[in-house]
């Protein structure tokens, strides 16, 4: 195991997150057990104040998690210079058996923490603070997820081995590889692309019908299919190379950092859709502004990724 300054930074923040999230966890347990808005007990007043502390801690963690995700990608990218065979972050992540799981957890936690904050905003707007107990029960789950993610991360960096030769994204993301997700490459392109536009249409329909549960499912499906189609199809048009499937490389300067716009719009679109729908199901009679936000970002995402193959076809007259 080696320690670069970046890894030390990540470890330090991980420890801070663990400690503070633990405080919030303890408070959550107390709230779930004793919270009673109607009580005029000293304990209830103390709990109300502690709830504010817990919310502040969770905000702090969430606000930092977003740039940290990018920093994590940067760090892996830098380490790829030292690990033989890896040419970008993807190789590094996959040099450890649970690297992909770690990354997936990071994304899931972003959504979970973000959702918690959206619920928190709703809660604070309510005179009776009706969602406090629910909110903190959810945090108990979020805490466990966070601990898992951090433990994964710590063992991830400690198991990085510079002597092990790893596959680069070129071989990882291909039919021939034997990594955990290589099965997806067996899906033929037309299927993936149709699935993409079909789920997108589902989104549009759900938007018109304005039924929350359908919109929720549509967004979840759209997210999964978008990632798949990005790796299998659209990515290749960004690279103009039919074998280059890596989801990390287009974050780099060579591709004008388009990766950031792609991921941010996808996140914003699906996040507002998913958390908005869940919140609307918990708190009925709310404004449905999340439909608009979600659709705008999702549409932008679809436009961006669709542009690449279309432009390629116009320029070259053929598909890849």
């Amino acid at each position, binding site marked *: 195991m080696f320690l670069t300054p970046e890894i030390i930074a990540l470890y330090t923040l991980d420890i801070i997150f663990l400690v503070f999230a633990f405080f919030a966890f303890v408070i959550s347990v107390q709230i779930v057990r004793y919270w009673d808005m109607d009580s005029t007990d000293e304990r209830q007043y103390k709990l109300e104040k502690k709830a504010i502390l817990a919310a502040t801690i969770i905000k702090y963690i969430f606000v930092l998690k977003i*740039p940290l995700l990018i920093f994590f990608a940067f760090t892996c990218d830098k380490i790829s210079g030292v690990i033989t065979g890896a040419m970008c972050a993807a190789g590094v992540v996959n040099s450890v058996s649970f690297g992909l799981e770690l990354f997936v957890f990071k994304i899931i936690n972003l959504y979970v923490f973000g959702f918690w904050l959206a619920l928190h905003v709703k809660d604070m707007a309510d005179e009776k603070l009706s969602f406090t107990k629910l909110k903190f029960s959810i945090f108990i789950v979020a805490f466990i997820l966070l601990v898992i993610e951090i433990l994964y991360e710590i063992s991830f960096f400690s198991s990085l081995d510079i002597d092990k030769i790893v596959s680069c994204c070129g071989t990882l993301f291909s039919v021939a590889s034997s990594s955990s997700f290589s099965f997806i490459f067996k899906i033929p392109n037309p299927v993936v692309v149709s699935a993409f536009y079909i789920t997108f249409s589902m989104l549009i329909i759900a938007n018109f019908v304005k039924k929350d549960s359908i919109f929720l499912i549509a967004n979840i499906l759209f997210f999964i299919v978008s990632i798949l189609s990005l790796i299998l199809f659209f990515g290749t048009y960004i690279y103009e190379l039919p074998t280059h499937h890596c989801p990390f490389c287009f974050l780099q300067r060579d591709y004008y950092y388009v990766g950031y716009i792609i991921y941010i719009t996808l996140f914003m679109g699906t996040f507002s859709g998913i958390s908005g729908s869940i919140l609307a199901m918990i708190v009925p009679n709310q404004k449905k502004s999340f439909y608009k936000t979600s659709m705008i970002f999702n549409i932008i995402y679809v436009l961006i990724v669709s542009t690449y193959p279309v432009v390629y076809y116009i320029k070259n007259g053929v598909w890849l």
Partner: protein
Amino acid sequence: MNHFLIGFSISSLLRRGSKSFFTIFIFTILIFLLSSILFISNSIKEELFITLKSLPQITVQKLQAGRHKNIEISKVDELLKLNGVQSAIPRVWGYYYFERAGVNFSVVGIDSFDKQYKKSFQQIVKDTDFDELSKNNTMVVGVGVKRVLEENYYKDFFNFVKPNGELKKIKIASTFKGSTSLESNDIILMPKDLVLEIFGMSKDEVTDIVLEVANPKEIQTISKKIKNLFPDTRVINNSDLRVSYQNIFDYKSGMFLALFIVSAFTFFMIVYDKASGLSSEEKREIGILKALGWKIDDILKSKFFEAFIVSFISFLSGIILSLFFVYTLQAPILRDIFIGYSRLKPDFDLPFILDFQTLSLLFFLTIPLYIAAIIIPSWRVASMNADEVMR
């Protein structure tokens, strides 16, 4: 953006002037130290990688009892026979210890007919006639060498001491500057036979052999082949070097970071201590704000704005001071930590490198720690009971 709130936070900081100033001062120093170390490390790495690029792809050395020994020149032909090897150049070079100055010179033998493995040498070979040099016992030295010799009263020649105790006087024909400062400092170029003479080596041995391969991806494979062919050799390739250098740097910076974190925690403990012990002034002020209709959240926001302002000012000041220290003053004292004293003290310029990655690293190492330290004290203050202010 609530500019009223920001303005209020600024005035709060000013109101507690000495405390805020103290915090900013210490925080700035911490960031200054940390960023200086990172900047120096980055710059040296950069210098080194430039140097490394000009290094040979594969170097073959002979080992005996784990120590380096001169290799037979006959091996050159055998190596050329290997598939994928484009060229095999024998090198004659070594370190000459100049006792009076306490430094080592790298003495490199040049044979004008051989292909040079370094571009900068190639240039010099073109410019200088090494046959001439051989006839007249002259050499070409690097800028750093010239300086050391002059400091020791050797103006245009130098007396080498041969292994048998005899002196060999060699005149300086000219000085050269390599493509990086590290290169030109301690190198002396002279005709091969002079080098052989100075080090007492025989004509059929050379120091090592450097190889160039057609396809860089084959370097590892060819290295293995060589090891199999000549079990008594050590095969060093380019990427091994790069990796080991990167590791050394990361290790050294890592060490400093660990030390830094310790001192940072101490700092933050002090901050926490000071922050949690609020003056009655402050307590009263918070009570008034609450009575006037500020939510706990508003008070927290104000406290966090204060923390951001302190962090931001410290961050900027620390980095600017550090940039000045490292790149204008060339980081006296600190840079020796990385360079070490064993070789000729290279008086090279640290190249200016400032990238976003380093800045974000600096950010993540400092500001979140500070903000974390003030979360609980700020909350405690903000959620105090305000009814006491009525008394």
